[in-house]
């Protein structure tokens, strides 16, 4: 462990990410996070996070284990509500609307965001039912709507050609990589604004990983994607902007290429050059 890294939390430099070289989208920002803090009981896990996520681009969250990147991601669609001990303060808004405001309908909020998890988690249903699940819970029963959505989502997840003849088969009968793309298809079935991906390729083999990365590249522009990854090469390959987090703080946030080739802070350069983490 590097001495600089250990001392980091105390002397974290005051840093305004907005002033930094973030690649801006011509469509403005989708997410606006301001002075966001989070506690598990008495333990603070996120410190004063402020960042803006541009619409239609891919934003990567990197950092060592336990730095809070997954926690931050799960705050965006309020998945942390499931944990009783979590408290938050600060502001987080999607498309100018508060996520943690009073009277926010969590269910409709989640419907506007798709989420892909670390491990593929298809339901024990047919491939078709897996994909149209978000519509089913909305009460859609029109067969043609469901079929159209299924095809569009599976095409979007680059899975249509492999599955079009076996839509009635169980989603669990597929390979790991296919299952993960099925989960992506499910996440985009309701045409969300934001796609949240929590280390989507970490449980997959290199070929399946390559396919997922290719897919993320194709989805760029249609969806605003926030992806948490452990794999810095992956972040470098797929993202437009990268945020580096460390011990619950946002250390550096900027254009991916700049952040990887010319990081502003020593902590960032230590991490991406593999000296810790």
């Amino acid at each position, binding site marked *: 462990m590097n001495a600089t890294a250990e001392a980091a939390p105390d002397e974290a430099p005051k840093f305004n990410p907005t002033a930094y070289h973030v690649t801006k989208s011509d469509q403005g920002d989708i997410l606006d996070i301001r002075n966001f803090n989070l506690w598990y009981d008495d333990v603070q896990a996120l410190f004063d996070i402020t960042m803006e996520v541009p619409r239609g681009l891919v934003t990567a969250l990197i950092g060592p284990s336990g730095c809070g990147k997954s926690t931050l991601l799960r705050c965006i669609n309020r998945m942390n509500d499931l944990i009783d001990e979590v408290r938050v303060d600060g502001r987080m808004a999607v498309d100018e609307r508060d996520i943690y405001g009073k009277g926010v309908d969590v269910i409709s909020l*989640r419907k506007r965001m798709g989420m892909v998890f670390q491990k593929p*988690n*298809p*339901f024990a249903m047919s491939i078709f039912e897996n994909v149209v*699940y*978000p519509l089913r*819970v909305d009460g859609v029963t029109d067969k043609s709507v469901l079929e159209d959505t299924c095809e569009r989502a599976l095409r979007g997840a680059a899975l249509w050609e492999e599955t079009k003849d076996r839509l009635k088969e169980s989603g669990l009968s597929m390979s790991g990589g296919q299952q993960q793309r099925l989960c992506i298809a499910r996440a985009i079935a*309701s045409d969300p604004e934001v796609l949240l991906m929590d280390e989507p390729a970490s449980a997959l083999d290199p070929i399946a990983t390559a396919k997922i990365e290719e897919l993320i590249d194709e989805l760029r522009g249609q969806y605003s994607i926030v992806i948490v990854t452990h794999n810095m090469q992956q972040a470098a390959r797929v993202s437009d902007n990268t945020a580096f987090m460390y011990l619950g703080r946002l250390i550096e946030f900027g254009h991916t290429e700049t952040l990887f080739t010319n990081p502003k802070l020593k902590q960032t350069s230590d991490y991406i050059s593999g000296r810790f983490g």
Partner: protein
Amino acid sequence: MSTNTETTSNHAEPKPGMNAASRRYTTDLTATGEPFLWGLGGALALGILLVVGFLVLIFWNGIATFWPKPIEVVTLNSGTVVAGEPTRDNVFKPGDGLLERLTEQDREIIDSNVGFAHRVLYRTGNYDLYNEDFRWVSDFEIAKVETPPGMYLFERQEWGVFIGRIAGLVLDGESRNLSDYDRAAIQEQQEAARERFEEIRHIERDEIGEVNYYMEQARLDLKRVALDHGRDSGEYRQAERETEQQITELQREYEQLAARAEAIKETDRRYRITLEEIGGEQKELPLSEIVRFYPANDLSPFGKAAVYFSRWGEFLTSEPREANTEGGVLPAIFGTVAMTLIMVVFVAPLGVITALYLREYAKQGRLVSIVRISVNNLAGVPSIVYGVFGLGFFAYTLGGGIDALFYPERLPSPTFGTGGILWASLTLALLTVPVVIVASEEALSAVPRSMREGSLACGASTWQTLRRVVLPRAMPGIMTGLILAMARGAGEVAPLMLVGVVKLAPELPVDGFFPYVHLERSFMHLGFHIFDVGFQSRNSEAGKPMVYVTTMLLLALIVLMNASAIYIRNRLKKRFAGSAF
């Protein structure tokens, strides 16, 4: 060690096409550091031995019971002749008084057996003549033992079995010469007589029973009018006239039926058979009284098999006779299955909903912990306590309330206000609900968090997530809980004795009268049947074989119910077979 050499040689010269699985490695138990393995294996072996021993005892006795045994005719030293089926034997120590009366030779034999003598228990039947069914015969009493042909065993409608010969036959009022009738011919006559008997029973029980039912109904309707409007009202007088007319009509119908039954009985009385026991005493009885008869010593193996299966058929499909020690157990089978199914109908939703709330909705805190501990403790409450509760709360309080509200015309005789199959099922549901709750909670908590998150992230509500994702996945585990509950419930007897099980239930809970399912009726249960036959009957020796057979049947029934539940569970499980992730 030879094993080692073998292994080495395999390594040294691998044969082509030989795969790794064909090599065998064995190691000393001491070398693997698992000396306690013997202890663990021994405990398992002991457990299996106990269970297998129990099952072998039950099945051996249960399967052998209905096989016809030979009839031995034993001539005693005193000149008395005893005829009977040898049932079992043992050794006993003759008292001094008895020893004195024996011959020198017999005493020597007994002395050489360190004072023990051997004896055999014969089932002699003929209770009406001897006042006993069984008789011990000691070896030293016996002059000779034979198995002569022509000895018959008659199973009678009343008085149990008769062992002896056929001495006379009266057909259609005329005495017949026995040499004109071989066994097949007599059997034909007996079967015809039996059909007449069944027809009389059908008329008396079903048809006259129906007339009685409608008469009772008419009276109850009248009483209801009296309760609603008072005895002086016009409505009552009107209803009284109608009821009287109705009852007169029914009375006429009854008389017709009774006359029909009487005519058949008249015919029946003209067919009689005379039986003679080994000592020469005779007994005449209607041919229709004989349920089954066979010449025990003259049967071929096929003939014995025919008797065996005919007895099984009677056991499974007819009602008990002779204080339950003879005949069948159909009402008990029906009662057991019906009660268990009704119990499942109550316990499944109750247990699963409770578990859902406890696990998925309730805030996990001290209160929930207390509830959970209490539920676990409920599983340890003695079942008789549930029986007392069921009687006091369900039967007397709830049932009494229902009677007062809906059946005031039948009071003071209770309808729901006494034990019945509904209350028994509810009591057992209470008894088994902790098992279902605990198993369901386990099953729910075993559903991976990623499944719930996946569903919630799609915008599903908690309830939608539970219904569409969590519950289907937890279903095999919940089914396991239900199977355990079913097995426990079906085998439970003690609480049932308080809430509705009876020795002999004349009517099944399902019949042809509206509303067809009568949940208020008392019922028979195989578990209670075992208790009743084995410990409450006039002659426990006669009931013993029935205890084994009934126990075997109850076990088989529980295995059958569990097997079908397990089959359903495995089909559910198959859906999650590929979920490696």
